[in-house]
């Protein structure tokens, strides 16, 4: 007997396909839509359905890129890391490697993978271990700097202050403050102890306060 695994609402259009699910053969005449859950999209993508994979891109590319950007503080590298994260997902789904491929939570898998890729990239930078000696960030003293700050977009000013932090401090703030990772998970991802993570966070926040102090009245 032919059974539809997912509701018709999730299958608006596409080419005929046969799927195996829960030990039974399932006829599927249409591809998964953007409303389908991660599990359906991953299953379809694992069978080479490019449309399903594009739905996953639509759903998570922005989030993965934002995460990479906050850790790396640089657009081009963040785009490369995002691209690599999705390429890895596409690859593990194509291989059908089981344990390595996500079965439901594509977002969680992508965030973890992109985070690790970003940390690897940071490690390759010479600055990764040198944040202890980096001077505290001071307000820019060059002529016209204050005027430029005044005209800069508020969000952009905060973004620039974050990007100017030493790599490890920025990565720690990205993971704990923005991504909301538990301390142990963030520390493990960075390869430091929880105490060291706390120290990086505290120093990063102090630097940001110093950098943004003059702008606080405009910002808040």
């Amino acid at each position, binding site marked *: 007997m032919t059974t539809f695994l997912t509701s018709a609402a999730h299958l608006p259009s596409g080419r005929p*396909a*046969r799927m*195996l699910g829960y030990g039974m053969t399932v006829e599927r005449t249409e591809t998964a839509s953007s409303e389908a859950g991660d599990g359906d999209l991953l299953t379809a993508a694992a*069978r*080479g*359905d*490019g449309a399903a*994979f*594009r739905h996953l*891109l639509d759903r998570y*590319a*922005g989030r993965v*890129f*934002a995460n990479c*950007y*906050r850790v790396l503080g640089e*657009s081009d590298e963040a*785009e490369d890391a*995002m*691209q690599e994260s*999705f*390429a890895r997902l*596409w690859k593990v789904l*194509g*291989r*059908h*490697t089981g344990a390595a491929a996500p079965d439901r939570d594509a977002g969680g898998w992508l965030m973890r993978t992109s985070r690790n890729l970003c940390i690897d990239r940071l490690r390759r930078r010479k600055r990764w271990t040198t944040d202890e000696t980096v001077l505290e960030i001071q307000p820019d003293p060059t002529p016209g700097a204050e005027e430029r700050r005044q005209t800069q*977009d*508020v*969000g*952009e000013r*905060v*973004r620039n202050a*974050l990007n100017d932090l030493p790599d490890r401090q920025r990565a720690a*703030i990205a993971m*704990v*403050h*923005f991504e*909301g990772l*538990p*301390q142990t998970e963030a520390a493990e991802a960075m390869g430091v102890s*929880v105490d060291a993570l*706390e*120290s990086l*966070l*505290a120093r990063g*926040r*102090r630097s*940001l*306060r110093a950098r*943004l102090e003059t702008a*606080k009245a405009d*910002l*808040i």
Partner: protein
Amino acid sequence: MMTEDRILELIEAYGADPVRWPEDERAAAQTLLAASDDPRLRASLAAAKDLDTMLSMATVPAISPDARRRLYAEAAAPSAPIAWLRRLFDWPGPIWQPTGALAAALVLGIWVGIANPEASADIAGLAGGTVQTETESGDDFDSFVGMEDNL
């Protein structure tokens, strides 16, 4: 045991929102914070709240059109042959399994043919004999049926 100094450390590192504080210290810290009249805690909390507000305003640039194009191109092209093979075999497991089995059968066949031509000729002869046998078997079957009728 939770102390006011430790709460100051938590605020310095994690900010004003207790959601970001370590889970195993959160409840104790919140309880002590609510009960304490230490002015250092109020000042630290206010400064941390300001910074949290500023951080929430931080923007992220848009993904460049070029990166977006590369990203979507990836979804269209690279595993198309794999997808085609999957549909061909309708194989839910690793694609190397059916492909490997076919390749192994092919290699075995070629090897038997090349390595042992006499055996190949015998096999071919057997195949021819089979046709005859089938015909004979048919006769045998008719006579067997006839015998059965006679019983």
